[in-house]
């Protein structure tokens, strides 16, 4: 009897804990939103909510990119600088073509966007090659490619923003609307749905989970692990490139400093959302949750006029707390 009751208690307690852990972040998110709203009611205004959604749609792309790599037990520190260099590259190509022939706007946009995405593929292939074939620690690889991308971004731009991105481009990708919904939100939503379907419904997508949760099993099962690893990094960098193009349309210029804090924020968002650093756990819902969390946090701190430097400190604390929660969750 007593044995049974003990075992019931033992069985229930972790289950309750697991339930709490599972809903901890959404609860925190709601509490945080309410807390900010109590201090500053404008946070719940329609304009600001739309603002938060638009901002989150950029971050969620980067968080999803980071998530794909983290699924395979990797990291991409170079993401931010990849964003910078793609932004500069796209702006340079676009302004260059438009300057030489003002009529060829469509051509300019198509060519520059493909150049940006091609650059993303290149960075991802480089990272993936070093990680999978040379077997260098992903941390070191992306730390190295971070510097390489930074060098490229600031060299080709001369360290200055590239102005003169055609207004039509911004109108289309930034301030454009479809059925009243801003373009960035639509683009992000489409990307998220595609990646979600790939990750959950295709053999290809499931491969990343296997690779992350048990690399040995993946290998024994005959999965081409190296290829999958490389794909993960390419997907990550291509998503980063797309995000960079959207951001370039928003700022209307190619910015070599665009990606400064994006790597940290994307990792923070992914981990806060519940993507495990030990690989194999996570998905688009997690990336979405994390991105909204980080955006609400920074938006709330902006509106309550908290100093930018303090925000940096808070973000650092949140990252550590999130990893700690992740640690408990997977114990």
């Amino acid at each position: 009897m007593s044995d049974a009751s003990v075992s019931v208690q033992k069985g229930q307690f972790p289950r309750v804990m697991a339930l709490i852990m599972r809903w901890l972040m959404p609860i925190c998110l709601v509490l945080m939103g309410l807390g900010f709203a109590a201090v500053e009611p404008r946070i719940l205004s329609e304009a600001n909510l739309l603002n938060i959604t638009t901002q989150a749609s950029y971050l969620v792309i980067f968080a999803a990119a980071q998530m794909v790599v983290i699924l395979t037990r990797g990291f991409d520190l170079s993401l931010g600088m990849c964003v910078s260099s793609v932004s500069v590259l796209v702006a340079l190509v676009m302004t260059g073509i438009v300057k030489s022939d003002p009529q060829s706007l469509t051509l300019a946009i198509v060519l520059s966007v493909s150049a940006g995405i091609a650059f993303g593929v290149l960075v991802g292939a480089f990272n993936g090659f070093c990680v999978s074939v040379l077997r260098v620690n992903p941390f070191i690889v992306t730390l190295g490619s971070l510097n390489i991308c930074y060098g490229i971004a600031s060299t080709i731009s001369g360290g200055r923003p590239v102005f003169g991105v055609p207004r039509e481009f911004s109108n289309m990708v930034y301030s454009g609307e479809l059925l009243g919904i801003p373009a960035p939100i639509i683009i992000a939503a489409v990307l998220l749905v595609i990646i979600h379907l790939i990750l959950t419904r295709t053999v290809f997508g499931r491969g990343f989970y296997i690779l992350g949760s048990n690399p040995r099993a993946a290998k024994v099962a005959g999965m081409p692990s190296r290829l999958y690893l490389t794909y993960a990094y390419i997907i990550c960098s291509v998503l980063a490139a797309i995000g960079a193009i959207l951001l370039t349309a928003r700022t209307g210029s190619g910015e070599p400093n665009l990606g400064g804090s994006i790597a940290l924020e994307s990792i923070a968002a992914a981990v806060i959302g519940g993507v495990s650093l030990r690989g194999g756990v996570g998905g688009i819902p997690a990336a979405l949750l994390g991105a909204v969390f980080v955006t609400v946090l920074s938006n709330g701190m902006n509106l309550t006029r908290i100093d930018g430097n303090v925000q940096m400190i808070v973000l650092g604390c949140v990252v550590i707390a999130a990893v700690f929660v992740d640690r408990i969750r997977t114990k």
Partner: protein
Amino acid sequence: MVSNNIALGHLPQKEVNQLVRVISTMGLLPILLIVIVAALSIFEPRFLGIFNILNVLRETSFLAILAAGQMLVLIVGGFDLSVGAVVALSSTVMATVMANTLGIMPDEVGLVIFIGVAAGIGCGVVVGLVNGLCVAYLRVSPFMVTLGTLSIASGIALLLTNGIPVYGMPKVFVNGFGRALWLGLPTTVYVALTLVIIVWAIQRFTVLGRYIYAIGGNLQASQVSGVSTKRYLITAYTMCGALAAITGVLLTARVGSGQATLGGDIMMLQSIAAAVIAGVSLRGGIGRVELVTLGALFLSIVTNSMNLVRIDSKIQTIVLGVIVIFAVALEEYGNRRKIRE
């Protein structure tokens, strides 16, 4: 037939293996250093100018101290991304404390310097302690912890100064220590040499050093053998923080003002690069401070020579990134060779 084939194929293979083994124990580094110095002194006579050599030595000393700390953390199987931010933090804290205490007691310059330096190094110790505690007790990935403390430390440094350099340190400290030459060498060289020797002695002769290797080599085994792994993990991170803070103090004394932009990501990357080039394994358990110092020297010479031939600093970061990846790839290749043998 088969055995014959193997025997035939074995001879050159063996020599290659031997070469690889010599390189992986000695490191490619001394050879590379000699080659690069020889090449530079032939093609770029300015390299051997006395000012340039002093410059290289000074840069090497800063980097060597930082890299020694990074090495300790790498040996226990960790990472410290926060070293660059700690440099900035200790710089701003020290300068602020010195400027303020000098205002209160303008006559007690010695005491002011002491308090300032202690405060600067104290910051590093605290950050290192936080890193160590999180890694040891919360068992959080060192990468994420130090990414967090990086953000926190540089946030505090910027908050403290608003990004404006802090002036007002005692003149004696700047002119008599930071920019001074003793017996023809910059003071930082002596400090770096002392610290490197201390770390070397710790690694070589003390239980602490042995345990740090043991933990990195096999955490579980050392735990089972009764090593209080947590204590030594924390010690390693704290030492790393303290060494980074000392680098910050020396840099501040040299620059003459406390700046939140000192250190930063570039120095963090350089410290990892110097350690990795010197054969410190990212998997822990392997690393020698004397080689790391050579690694720092190598990096400083490479940077210096690129400056001399006027290669843009932006391209230099590209080169640094390539060097780091290449060094780790080489180490990884050597490891796999060893395993195959």
